[in-house]
């Protein structure tokens, strides 16, 4: 099974045998890979009932719930890592969600589509329209992405919050790209954070 590129980066950087909470875990592809390949004790939180059922059918422990509401139920320091992949921009309060991630997990992986990628910029600048790209495939009225964020926005945000960036990876067309001019060139970013 091939993981989505951002998930593959996360999977490769999670310490074997650790405890992981995957927030917005979808059908559990990452959790299953972490369990099967790295002996990780993985738990998941997912909004969509069909995805939860698929993950449960894989034998994974997944709770149907909402990152905006249900992260408050988790006790502090319960996990080595909290993972939020492609979900931050869909939450009502990304700042509160990020606080919870770093309360629940010793470290947090956060991945999101970069709204400052050149194609997005071009679409707005030349087309005057909200971008519809491979990574942002839905029109403005149907997209779940309600808090678009750029790599530089995110860097600035974690800095003001005193959050340490332990690692950052940038992707363009599914391949890793350099940190140089990532805010312009990368479609997608993965950050490893620590309080």
């Amino acid at each position, binding site marked *: 099974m091939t993981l989505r590129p951002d998930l593959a980066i996360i999977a490769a950087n999670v310490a074997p045998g650790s405890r992981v909470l995957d927030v917005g875990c979808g059908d559990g592809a990452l959790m299953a890979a972490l369990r099967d390949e790295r002996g990780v004790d993985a738990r998941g939180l997912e909004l969509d*009932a069909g995805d939860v059922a698929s993950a*449960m059918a894989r034998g994974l422990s997944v709770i149907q719930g909402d990152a905006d509401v249900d992260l408050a*139920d*988790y006790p502090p320091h319960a996990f080595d890592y909290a993972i939020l992949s492609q979900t931050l921009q869909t939450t009502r309060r990304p700042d509160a969600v990020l606080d919870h991630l770093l309360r629940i997990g010793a470290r947090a992986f956060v991945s999101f589509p970069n709204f400052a990628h050149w194609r997005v910029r071009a679409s707005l600048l030349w087309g005057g329209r909200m971008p519809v790209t491979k990574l942002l495939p839905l029109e403005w009225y149907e997209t779940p992405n309600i808090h678009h964020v750029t790599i530089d926005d995110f860097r600035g945000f974690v800095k003001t919050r005193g959050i340490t960036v332990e690692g950052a990876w940038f992707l363009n067309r599914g391949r890793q790209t350099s940190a140089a001019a990532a805010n312009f060139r990368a479609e997608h970013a993965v950050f490893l954070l620590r309080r």
Partner: protein
Amino acid sequence: MIDPRFGPNRTATLGKLSLDGGGALASVDVAYETYGALAPDAANAILVCHALTGDQHVASAHPRTGKPGWWARMIGPGKPIDTDRWCVIAANVLGSCMGSSGPASIDPATGEPYAMTFPVITIRDMVRAQGLLLDHLGIERLAAVVGGSMGGMQALSWAATFPDRVRACVVIASAARHSAQNIAFHEVGRQAIMADPKWRGGDYYDGDPPSAGLAVARMAAHITYLSEAGLTEKFGRKLQGRPDNPDGAKTFGFDADFQVESYLRHQGLAFTDRFDANSYLYITRALDYFDLAEEHDGHLANAFAGTTTRFCVVSFDTDWLYPTSESRAIVHALTAAGAAASFVELRSPYGHDAFLLETPGLDRVIAGFLGAAE
């Protein structure tokens, strides 16, 4: 060698059972069935717990009604609870009337039925009786305990009372306590039974049972098992057909003019053929007393502290008897306790009864969860 402890239609007479209400039963009978073979290491046993009016005939014909087992669609070779892999045990709960000790049983002290001298029991008492049964069967640890509705409460109580004896726990359409509304509906049922002159303080075993009261109790309860939308879709305001008028008509009397009335009356009547009114009183009482948090200093999470049991909690979106919020309260406690827990709210038009009916999402979840056991 056939082991006489396993198979259909078994009854075990077990030892003394101390009860939550104080006192004890000197010995308890537990009627049960098993399906599938127990592995030599006894590690493949799944206990299936039944609901208020259920019984041990999960996948075999009911001896009185001849109807298929109440969970025959879930349990059997190749089914979600696959008896080619698992040894399924289903026991009639303490207080019931299908062979386990209950108010209709003979009190050895008097040679007469216990009737209302039977002690008031709790969900945990039912679970402890099942624990004695597992001892009798030589099963130290369950691969899983599975139950819907009151069966889910037993499953939760199992995980809280005997955490070392339960590897996995499946709780379907259930709750960790009875709400005021749950208690209120049960009180209607109990009052209907006790208002029937044939109830006679519970001493009716030598004559006519209080069938009218029990039927009304069942009618009231049955409404809570169905969704409003389900009732509307099935019956709406449709009138009952009659020999002289297949479309039915209002009689301007009090016959069952509406189809829903006729249906409920039928449900009530059919129930009295297979269930004992006093058992209904005792089991509804046990349900009303159930509050798992209360047994653990008021904190539900304490019930699961340090547990290594895997949990699977399922609710249905149209269940208003034990709504999703009750399942979420369980999940909240499991999360706080750090337990390995899964939860999903499935869609179904059938209300609380969904766990008994054709619900493909449930089959998939149960099969997946159990199949993932080591």
